[in-house]
């Protein structure tokens, strides 16, 4: 499936870039703290005060270097990181004013780099060896970039036609335009990483071959497909998995996607917000989100919730679908009302009861399921690595699996629901560092030899 880059202009970014003046003003709000709390809020440990200071003094290219040195996906993270919950939550200015807009400032620097070229990155201690990475999402690209900067020969095997993983195929364009993700793929390529697209590694034999040819392997395959839900009518035409729908908006002309006027989204996480706001932009007039619990238990971030409401999305709380109905395609969804049996209504573990005789029917042209991805234990089982509760087990500091020299990073490790790009990038970087630590001992560079 080729990419529909022109959809970037049809689904323009919701958050506008800061103007040059806004950027300077905002940068000057930063106190340039020492040992700054915001840095501890960032899994990749970007030196935030430094890059903001560089923006304040007009050194945008240097600011981009500071960011990319720590986080090669700085442009993506500037847009889709839940900064309110990470760096900005730690900003000292929360105490005397409001947090510095770190994410939007990061975007200023990264936009500059996208426009004027990426700065050369600081040199890192070099090593020597060959590394294979499976999956070209944020986690795999981060590991690959870091190793390439250290002079390793790195090759990525990716099942899809392009890199970027969910950044390219799963994030709605009005939050991160496709060109941003592709810029990052290009950045990683320029660091010397070799991409092999259309290469799915899903047979043990493929994996064994990689093991023979490379000194280390990084598994970065993300989460699996959304599981079947198990209610009647789920397979009717007109029922979408949220991720599939988003992927369509990134790979097909928008005019090919017809949802009809009445759209119902099931689930109340961040993905549901993406699905609902996407449906609005694709022309649906009436979009509602059904959630079997109340507002207090909603897993979406506050700003996502606000965004959905601003778009006119209607929330129906304490509502649980029990069947999707329709003759040859979706026509309606049958629901019941729920309530908490015991315990705190804001606790997602509290048991629910169906309210007797509460059944009702909502008409719908399209149903979008946003009920979460599955853990990807598949490859772990295939290669024989230890797994626990459906995910690959790794050493906490090195990310090595139970198989020597095989590492796993990113969403394929993430506990359900906590997946973030910035965590995937941090994982990738840390695994790369561990690989370097291992390989530099075993394979000291030979004098005068050039590589990378």
């Amino acid at each position, binding site marked *: 499936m080729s990419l529909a880059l022109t959809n970037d202009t049809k689904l323009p970014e919701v958050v506008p870039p800061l103007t*040059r*003046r806004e950027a300077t003003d905002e940068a*000057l709000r930063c106190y*340039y703290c*020492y040992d700054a709390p915001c840095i501890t809020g960032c899994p990749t440990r970007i030196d935030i005060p*430094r890059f903001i*200071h*560089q923006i304040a*003094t*007009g*050194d945008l*290219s*240097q600011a981009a*270097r500071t960011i990319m040195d720590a986080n090669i996906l700085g442009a993506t993270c500037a847009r889709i990181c839940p900064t309110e919950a990470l760096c900005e939550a730690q900003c000292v200015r929360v105490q005397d004013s409001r947090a510095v807009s770190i994410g939007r400032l990061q975007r200023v620097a990264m936009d500059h780099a996208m426009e004027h070229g990426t*700065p050369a990155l600081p040199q890192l201690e070099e090593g020597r060896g060959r590394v294979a990475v499976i999956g070209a999402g944020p986690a795999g690209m981060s590991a690959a970039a870091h190793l390439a900067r250290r002079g390793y020969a790195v090759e990525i095997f990716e099942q899809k036609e392009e890199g970027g993983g969910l950044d390219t195929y799963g994030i709605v364009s009005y939050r991160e335009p496709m060109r941003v993700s592709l810029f990052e793929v290009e950045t990683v390529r320029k660091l010397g990483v070799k991409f092999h697209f259309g290469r799915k590694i899903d047979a043990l034999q493929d994996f064994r071959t990689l093991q023979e040819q490379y000194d280390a392997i990084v598994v970065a395959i993300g989460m699996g497909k959304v599981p079947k839900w198990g209610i009647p009518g789920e397979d009717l035409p007109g029922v979408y998995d949220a991720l599939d729908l988003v992927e369509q908006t990134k790979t097909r002309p928008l005019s090919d996607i017809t949802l009809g006027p009445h759209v119902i989204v099931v689930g109340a996480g961040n993905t549901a917000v993406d699905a609902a706001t996407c449906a609005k932009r694709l022309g649906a007039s009436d979009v509602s989100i059904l959630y079997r619990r109340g507002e207090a238990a909603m897993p979406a971030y506050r700003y996502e919730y606000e965004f959905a409401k601003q778009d006119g999305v209607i929330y129906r709380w304490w509502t649980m679908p029990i069947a999707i109905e329709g003759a040859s395609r979706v026509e309606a969804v049958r629901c019941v009302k729920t309530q908490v049996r015991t315990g705190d209504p804001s606790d997602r573990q509290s048991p629910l009861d169906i309210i007797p005789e509460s059944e009702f029917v909502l008409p719908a042209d399209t149903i979008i399921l946003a009920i979460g991805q599955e853990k990807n234990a598949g490859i772990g089982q295939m290669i024989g690595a230890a797994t626990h509760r459906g995910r690959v087990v790794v050493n906490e500091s090195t990310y090595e699996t139970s198989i020597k020299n095989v590492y796993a990073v990113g969403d394929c490790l993430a506990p359900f629901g906590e997946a973030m790009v910035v965590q995937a990038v941090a994982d990738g970087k840390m695994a790369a560092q561990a690989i370097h630590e291992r390989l530099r001992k075993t394979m000291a560079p030979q004098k005068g030899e050039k590589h990378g």
Partner: protein
Amino acid sequence: MADLSVDFAGIHSPNPFWLASGPLTNTQYQVMKAFDEGWGGAVWKTVGEPVINVSSRLGAIDYGGRRMMGLNNIELISDRPLDDNLREIAEVKRLYPGNALVVSMMFESVASVWRDMVKRVEDTGADGIELNFGCPHGMSERGMGSIVGQVPEYTETITRYAAQATSLPVIVKLTPNVTDIRPPGRSAVSGGAGALSLINTINSVMGVDLNTWRPLPDVDGQGSHGGYCGPAVKPIALHMLSSLYNDPGIRVPLCGIGGIETWRDAAEFMLLGASVVQVCTAAMHYGFRIIHEMTEGLNDYLTERGLSRVADLVGQAAPRIGGWKDLRLSTSFQVVAHIDPATCIGCNLCVVACDDGAHQCIDRPSHQKAPVVREEDCVGCNLCSLVCPVPGCIAMNPVDKGYIDTWSGHELPAQ
């Protein structure tokens, strides 16, 4: 990668950024930490006969919500025992042979004292000495510091005491508290200085507390004049630096000091003649870590401009600073303001500035937001473009009348 290393009066330094003598260079711990962060060199806190300090010691002025635009201090030279200082200096030099380590000194004006002290500093292995003829408070009341720097004969005499006693490069640090920096500069050179550094701090009183009527900073209610530094003093330092660089009587390398906070500041000092720069206030404000941005930015700047070495910048802009009498008079050349209506936001700051503070040549047409300059009346003073909050909105366009007219041409021939 450009080559940031420099040779300054025979002192090698991995980059042109040094810490100035002051609270940052008081101890071995600090100087080693600074070298680890990337500073090329350091000038040790002025050593001398031990003193006793007062408390408090610093005052600052904030401007437009930003802190410490200017800093003032009434701190004296090092209050640590001389032996401790010298032992630590030797230790730092032993551990960091590649960094430039200069020892700032201030002693009473007695030749034998200087001879002995210079020898002791030499024994530490330090790369050079800096004579503090600049401290404008406290020490000056004891016949040292700026009292020396303000009298060219004293400057020459004491420089000679030190220079004759050592083979190390002697840098004389000048005080800006003079009407013309050149005579003391020349005297230092004739006394044997291998280099000059400037500026030390400028005499100042920071302010008065409106509730208590106490001066700032105060020592139990009483204040004294103190040395002013920080971003606010940079233009004064640039002036003094360029006038020394352009003086034919001064053929020694110069070290620029005063208000340097970013690599851009440093590059300006270099373009006006500094081979090396020293930083005090900015590092006191933000810590040694600012060196990263400084070396990174300077390196990128040199690389972008195709320059391979720092030395390629030194003095390049200095010839452009000369006498007023050689400037073209507005009879032959002027600039005229132009307000871009597309970017004007309609704040009218240029209007009021021109009307009240300049030449009444900006009109406000009723049909549009943007004011318009009456070009035939504009004298080209720049004020409107300086007050305009929108970058690039007011351009000052040159109008060249095609001939040269300067005040020199109007002067009567010398009698």
